[in-house]
């Protein structure tokens, strides 16, 4: 009797919750065959960031100290930059962003942002007082640069906004600090990606199930809680002191046409966690709207409409067409 009385309101509540959540659609992806790309330069030694513009795919190869340009059908076109410390040379580049044919590269171990034109010629840049990790053009005048905290000083900022002349406009998002530098390194790993109209998003790779939304001036204007159905992969590591558990929220993420594409880490044989093959498609309200299953795990990716450009765990370029 009691169950029957309670059952009605519970069923109503459950129905209301379900109505609030869209059905999760299952999307598949078909791999597009790529050209052979036999040139030695076309090999990707350590691809760690991708960017797109209207005609090209840009892949940062930290090992080769170059940004490699591909056509959108995957044909290798050229490498921009080479290893070194001089103008036009790069030391462990880790991020790239493109606007109007101008490339901005996070030149990590040279502590600078370097600009190139599409022909590969250096076109200035500016030094930064930290090892830059990612670079994102937000609009025609603002560049977002991220840094990983060193742990040497308190309240280190991880986001930095510069104008194209290298003038600092804003810094924010303080690194979280505990007594364990290894744990701190994990919990302060962030991913950033530009949205629309100069806004940008920040995702912590572990520990938070939300997406931070900032304006182009650095104002935090929203915290989007991500659907709890989105899978976490917990990770126990032998941190100093009591064992701490990381919630592996996100291996990689991007934004395209009003949707977040978030890949959760997956267990990998012989390792703790690695890249997964399932992308969660989340709307601006944080609701999981679709899951996209790729034919293979991907390490980094960008999305443009129904195309997914990715590098797999072996550093190979993969292009997929989404079937909705």
């Amino acid at each position, binding site marked *: 009797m009691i169950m029957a009385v309670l059952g009605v309101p519970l069923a109503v509540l459950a129905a209301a919750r379900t109505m609030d959540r869209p059905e999760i659609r299952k999307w598949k992806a078909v791999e597009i065959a790529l050209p052979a790309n036999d040139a030695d330069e076309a090999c990707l030694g350590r691809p760690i960031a991708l960017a797109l513009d209207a005609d090209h795919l840009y892949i940062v190869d930290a090992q*080769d100290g170059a940004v490699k340009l591909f056509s959108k059908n995957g044909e290798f076109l050229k490498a921009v930059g080479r290893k070194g410390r001089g103008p036009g040379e790069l030391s462990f580049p880790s991020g790239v962003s493109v606007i109007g044919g101008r490339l901005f590269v996070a030149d990590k171990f040279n502590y600078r942002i370097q600009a190139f034109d599409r022909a590969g010629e250096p076109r200035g840049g500016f030094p930064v007082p930290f090892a830059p990790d990612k670079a994102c053009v937000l609009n025609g005048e603002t560049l977002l640069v991220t840094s990983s905290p060193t742990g040497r000083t308190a309240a280190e900022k991880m986001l930095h906004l510069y104008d194209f002349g290298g003038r600092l406009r804003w810094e924010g998002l303080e690194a979280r600090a505990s007594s364990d530098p290894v744990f701190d390194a994990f919990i302060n790993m962030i991913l950033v990606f530009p949205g629309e109209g100069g806004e940008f998003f920040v995702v912590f790779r572990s520990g938070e199930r939300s997406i931070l939304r900032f304006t182009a001036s650095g104002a935090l204007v929203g915290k989007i809680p991500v659907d709890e159905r989105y899978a976490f992969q917990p990770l126990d590591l032998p941190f100093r002191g009591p064992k701490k558990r990381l919630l592996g929220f996100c291996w990689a993420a991007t934004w395209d046409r009003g949707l977040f594409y978030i890949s959760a880490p997956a267990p990998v044989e012989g390792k703790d966690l690695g890249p997964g093959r399932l992308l969660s498609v989340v709307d601006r309200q944080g609701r999981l709207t679709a899951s996209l299953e790729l034919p293979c795990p991907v390490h980094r990716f960008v999305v443009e409409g129904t195309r997914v450009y990715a590098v797999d765990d072996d550093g190979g370029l993969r292009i997929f067409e989404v079937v909705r």
Partner: protein
Amino acid sequence: MKRGLFPIALAAVLAGGAMGAGRAAVKARICASLEEASRGSPGPVLLVFFSTDCPICYDDLFESRYLIDKGRWPVSVVGVFSGPRDDLRTFLEKYAWTLPVVLDRRKALFKKYKVDAVPFKALLLGMEAVYRDDPYGDPDGRREELKRCLTRLFFR
């Protein structure tokens, strides 16, 4: 680095610097495959995966050669490198390294022997890896383990 090995690595570096003046005399052996690298010396092979960007890798490469030479183990040392050819050539000439190195741009050997990070060593008997560095081990511990493995396999 073990105290006894440090002078060897240092000597290799200094010798490399001294050889820099006569770079044309050094014949770097950059190979396209493991088969090409081990041609003429069939038998056990110690693969040393390295990068020209990390000094720890240099030590591992130099000390691997020292270890094999000193123990007179019947093992060929073959370097494996996945970076640009020009970087490799410059490195080999600078350090007068004449042992074969496989230029593994497409990471076929890295994948085959499941190498995620360098430096890394694998001892092959035929195609089978009878020893692999512990990815979480420290360099000295790895070296001791390799020595134990060599002794077990090839003691006279």
